[in-house]
């Protein structure tokens, strides 16, 4: 089994009917080096798609193409008409010399009254920070404020680039539960970028694993057992993931290591 043999199965529907945002056959080279090769991706309303891959796999680059922050060398990007996107960038370094309160950060491009800002902050559990300085937030607080900021736009699609960065482990699990609740409540589509499958597995409906090209995609359970995934991340990663889905499959050896079919020699 290899990625070439599986490629045709990944073909997208000719008309992405219920898709909010999709990219088809996206390729990009920077300085003569291929960064993305023939990537297909689609996010539908009410769906949580996790984009995973090792560092330098091109995840953030792909997200930027989808958001219109760059142009692909080839391929097509399709957006639903009037699509409102709430974006949480990977990093938001704030210039300390620019005085900025959380309330002001929330309202940078949105005209909203205090009640609306409070409601959005409440949804992510940080309403008490409304008058705090945006410069003194902890990692977890900042991610929640940025998430609330994206929600304030009443987005059809949330795009979260490494949302658990700078968040401690307990906070990460809670953050992903929160993201799941947001989807349930609002029915928006969500694209999460992460370097790590086992972080996003609780929330994701669909996983797309890339390393310049699409390595594998499908359900979190399916991807975890994919030889391409195990080759990329090592058996340890699959093992860590298996803890979460214990009982969903039985492809473990005696020590608990996942044994994908047809590749028993880990």
């Amino acid at each position, binding site marked *: 089994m290899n990625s070439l043999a599986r490629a045709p199965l990944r073909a997208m529907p000719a008309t992405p009917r219920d898709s909010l945002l999709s990219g088809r056959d996206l390729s990009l080279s920077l300085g003569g080096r291929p960064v993305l090769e023939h990537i297909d991706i689609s996010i539908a309303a009410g769906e949580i798609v996790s984009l995973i891959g090792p560092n330098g796999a091109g995840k953030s680059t792909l997200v930027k193409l989808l*958001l*219109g922050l760059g142009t692909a060398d080839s391929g097509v990007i399709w957006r639903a008409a009037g699509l409102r996107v709430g974006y949480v960038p990977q990093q938001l370094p704030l210039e300390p010399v620019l005085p900025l*309160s959380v309330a002001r950060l929330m309202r*940078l*491009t949105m005209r909203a009254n205090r009640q609306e800002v409070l409601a959005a902050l409440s949804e992510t559990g940080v309403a008490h920070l409304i008058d705090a300085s945006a410069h003194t937030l902890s990692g977890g607080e900042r991610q929640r404020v940025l998430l609330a900021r994206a929600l304030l736009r009443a987005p059809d699609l949330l795009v979260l680039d490494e949302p658990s960065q700078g968040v401690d482990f307990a906070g990460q699990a809670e953050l992903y539960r929160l993201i799941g609740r947001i989807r349930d409540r609002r029915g928006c589509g969500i694209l999460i970028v992460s370097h790590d499958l086992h972080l996003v597995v609780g929330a994701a409906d669909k996983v797309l694993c890339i390393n310049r090209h699409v390595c594998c995609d499908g359900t979190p359970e399916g991807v975890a057992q994919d030889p391409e995934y195990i080759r990329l991340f090592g058996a340890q990663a699959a093992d860590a993931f298996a803890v979460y889905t214990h009982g969903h499959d039985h492809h473990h050896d005696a020590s608990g290591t996942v044994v994908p079919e047809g590749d028993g020699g880990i």
Partner: protein
Amino acid sequence: MMITDFFLRALVAGAGVACIAGPLGCFVVWRRMAYFGDTMAHSALLGVVLGMLFGSAPIFGVIAVTAFVALTLSSFGQRARFSSDTLLGILAHATLSLGLIAVSLLAVQVDLLSYLFGELLAVSMVDIYWIYGVGAVVLATLATIWRPLLAMTVNEELAQVEGVPVVQLRLGFMLLMALLIAVAMKIVGVLLITALLIIPAAAARSLARTPEMMAGVAVVIGLASVVGGLYGSLWFDTPSGPSIVVAASLFFCLSLAIGRGQFARG
């Protein structure tokens, strides 16, 4: 101390420039463009000469050349082989040297020092009309684009995803800088214009809780520096431009003491 017409004109002209430089200088500080502004100002001398050669008012030559330099710099920035620091250093000194050579080749005698360090006490009524006319345009434009420009200053990609036209705003801001440099040259000279932009803004930081408050405080500190510097230059018989800059620097030190090195919340 005798208050004469030329001293009053100097006060009025300096006050006008301080009012423009306050808010604009805040953006220079927030966007970390101090050296960028310096490079634009250094090229202004070349603009003066070109303006003279073409028989127009020097101000048009200055606007044209500084805007050209700003455009060149920002297009370099897209595909940087050298750090922007190096590029700015090269362009700043190359254009200044070109300007100095061009001045020396002029048939007419030009008071070089007045262009380099300002000649505030020689300000004419025409200069004052220019300062207040151009200043009104700059401040009105800045007020119009304030919100999106601030959003883009906090994070450019986030602003772009949220519909802020970042390219147009960047160009617009550079044009405002070029206009300010053209009218401020007479006050402090090309070598000290950046000081008038960044020192009052930096001094305002410890006293401000919002971006708008910082701009307002920067104007007040700028006005105080102009008044203090001018009276100082009269009292001690020192050059007016450098005296204003020294006064502003003293206010900056004072603001550090008041803020005890801490920024105000926000």
